[in-house]
């Protein structure tokens, strides 16, 4: 029972210090009246407040880094909170006890259930511990956002968050409904819309499959972490700081993630999701093009054709230019030879060894580029003047 005395006022002190910390910072900011939500981690809260005052303006790089650091800082605070609770509950256990592993696992269940509640709220920015817990899935969300076609993304209504909770049965009913053939004057556009909706359902299903596959990553990471802690205890290793726990957590997270994403199953569901998203966007683009075409506006298809032809023309132009340069070189060589021949002919015709006919290069000859002396420090400016070349747009 002595061991209990090592943590006499754990909870009280913890909360007290966090409150002191919060009060100190808010006092500095002259905002002591703005009390944090007691349910939230005050350390994360204070960081939120603090960061609002400091957020850099103007420099995008720094601002982005600032955001990422604040997000991960908050995650660390919340992680520390959860682990200190666990460590407190584990503090009464001793290695001497036969069932210490079982008891430790029991205590760890609390951590697992607390962490499981950290999910990315759909449609809202990722924050707090969820920022770390959901990193793999969040990374995919950011990946997809880079592929958005239009400002404001007109496909927003068919993003996964909107489809949250839609059952598989509803998917099937919707597919049956969507397979009803279009009729009448607007048949073609009905079919396009049906196809778009079908692809949206398809993508939603692929996304769900992908998200479900990720669902156990976090829990598996925690289970791996517990195993590593137990292994460490058996080998007499110690976790001396919260940062040590965090490092171990990251290590376990990467291990579990790597095992997951290295499987053939992962490659399949990843491929299905990317392909489903692209098919949906492709259909959206085709429908937009139809509308633009009907209004007599330029279409993406039209631009594609122009760009392709332009590139073909540029390729031909470059080829012609290269050919001309090659021909110029040939002409220059021939002129040199011709001049030499003239000299020889003149010499033999006149029978006088000293007679020479001066060679004058024609205007078509290309000047030879001056050679840059490489044996010593090269005269940069001279070289630049001699051969800086600019072509193209």
């Amino acid at each position, binding site marked *: 029972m002595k061991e209990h005395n*090592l*943590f006499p006022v754990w909870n009280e*002190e*913890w909360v007290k*210090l966090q409150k002191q*910390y919060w009060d100190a910072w808010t006092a500095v900011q002259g905002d002591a009246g703005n009390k944090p939500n007691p349910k939230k981690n005050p*350390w994360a809260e204070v960081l939120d407040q*603090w*960061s609002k005052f400091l957020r*850099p303006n103007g*420099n995008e790089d*720094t601002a*982005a880094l*600032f955001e990422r*650091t604040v*997000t*991960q800082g908050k995650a*660390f605070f919340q992680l520390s909170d959860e682990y200190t609770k666990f460590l407190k509950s*584990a503090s009464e256990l001793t290695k001497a006890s036969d069932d210490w592993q079982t008891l430790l696992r029991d205590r760890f269940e609390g951590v697992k259930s607390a962490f499981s509640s950290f999910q990315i709220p759909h449609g809202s920015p990722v924050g707090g511990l969820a920022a*770390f817990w959901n*990193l*793999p899935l*969040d*990374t995919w969300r950011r*990946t997809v956002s880079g*592929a958005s076609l239009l400002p404001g993304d007109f496909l927003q209504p068919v993003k996964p968050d909107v489809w949250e909770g839609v059952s598989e049965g509803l998917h099937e009913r919707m597919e049956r409904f969507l397979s009803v053939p279009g009729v009448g004057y607007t048949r073609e556009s009905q079919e396009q819309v049906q196809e778009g909706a079908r692809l949206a359902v398809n993508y939603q299903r692929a996304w769900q499959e992908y998200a479900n596959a990720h669902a156990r990553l976090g829990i598996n990471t925690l289970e791996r972490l517990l195993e590593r802690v137990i292994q460490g*205890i058996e080998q007499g290793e*110690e*976790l001396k*700081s*919260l940062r040590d*726990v*965090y490092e171990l957590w*990251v290590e376990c997270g990467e291990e579990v993630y*790597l095992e997951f*994403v290295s499987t053939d199953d992962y*490659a*399949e569901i*990843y*491929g299905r999701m*990317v*392909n489903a998203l*692209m*098919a949906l966007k492709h259909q959206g683009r085709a429908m937009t093009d139809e509308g633009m075409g009907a209004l007599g506006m330029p279409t993406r298809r039209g631009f594609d054709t122009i*760009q392709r032809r*332009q590139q073909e023309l540029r*390729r031909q132009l470059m080829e012609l230019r290269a050919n001309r340069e090659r021909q110029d070189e040939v002409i220059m060589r021939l002129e040199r030879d011709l001049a030499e021949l003239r000299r020889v002919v003149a010499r033999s015709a006149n029978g006088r060894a000293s007679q020479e006919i001066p060679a004058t290069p024609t205007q078509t000859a290309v000047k030879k*580029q001056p050679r840059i002396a*490489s*044996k*010593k*420090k090269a005269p940069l400016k001279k*070289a*630049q003047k001699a*051969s*800086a*070349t600019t*072509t*193209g*747009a």
Partner: protein
Amino acid sequence: MLPLQIRPDDALQEIQEFGVKLAHGLKNLSEMGEIDVGATPKETVYREDKLALYRFEPIASQLLPVPVLIVYALVNRPYMADLQKGRSLIEGLLKHGLDVYLIDWGYPDAADRYLTLDDYINGYIDRCVEVIRKRHDLSQINLLGICQGGAFSLCYATLHPDKVKNLITTVTPVDFHTADDLLSHWVRKVDVDLLVDTLGNMPGEMLNWTFLALKPYRLMGQKYLDMVNILDDPEQAKNFMRMEKWIFDSPDQAGEAFREFTKQFYQNNGLMKGEVEIGGKRVDLKNITMPVLNIYAADDHLVPPASSKALAGCVGTKDYTAVEFPGGHIGVYVSGKAQKLIPPAVAKWLEERA
């Protein structure tokens, strides 16, 4: 008691210290201002479309007779090879007497959508090589490829062996189907035609997040907490910011070139099979008969060492040297260790083959 020796007062202290460091660090960040990259003086000797060919101002009094052209990847920006003074591959090469040129591909936009690998390799690279050959009145120059630029250099050397005196590849993928190549594994089932037909150019941001997804917990989580420890020191904080700027500075990829590269190299592993076709000509690595120096990184998570090492069995040269760098994909250019190891190794190897 179990050896989970984190006393409550220590834990509180740790959290408090972290909070203070974080707050101070964020204050430093907010006051940091613009981040400068690219330290070595250079001039632009050729421009075409978005491309710029730079020549770096020589430092050494004695230069090796044959200049070296650095072919950078289409992904991210080439200032990674010249990040800052003291962390610059280019600065190191110049100090060791090399005459250094570099291709900067710029930021492709919709007008570049139909650029193919043929345009990049037989077009842009070849014209840059021509410019340098003429400037120096040489029939051959040295090529140094970085990552995907290394794969491009291999293709170029195969198709134009008469113009390449020595070939250096750094962290260059050759075998795209090694067991630990995650990128290749992920892209295997992706319909690349549909992807390019839909998106046109490949958004750089999309690629960037894909790279970060290789190690999400480390690259998007742990890294930022580690950074808190160095934010107190403005110089170290700036160094970190330079890398961060580089990581998120991702140009879009010209659609057709991306399609060809992904299908031929990643999905079909065509470089190993000798099935890559560029401009209607087959790329056979056996045509590489000039000396080859292949530098790879032991802890590379983007291009696994096995992928680079595979080059040994594919090239036709009898003069092949491989160098393993003890570090990662980026560390091979920017780490302190790299500054001491890579430039002298490259310079010595080239000097022996001048």
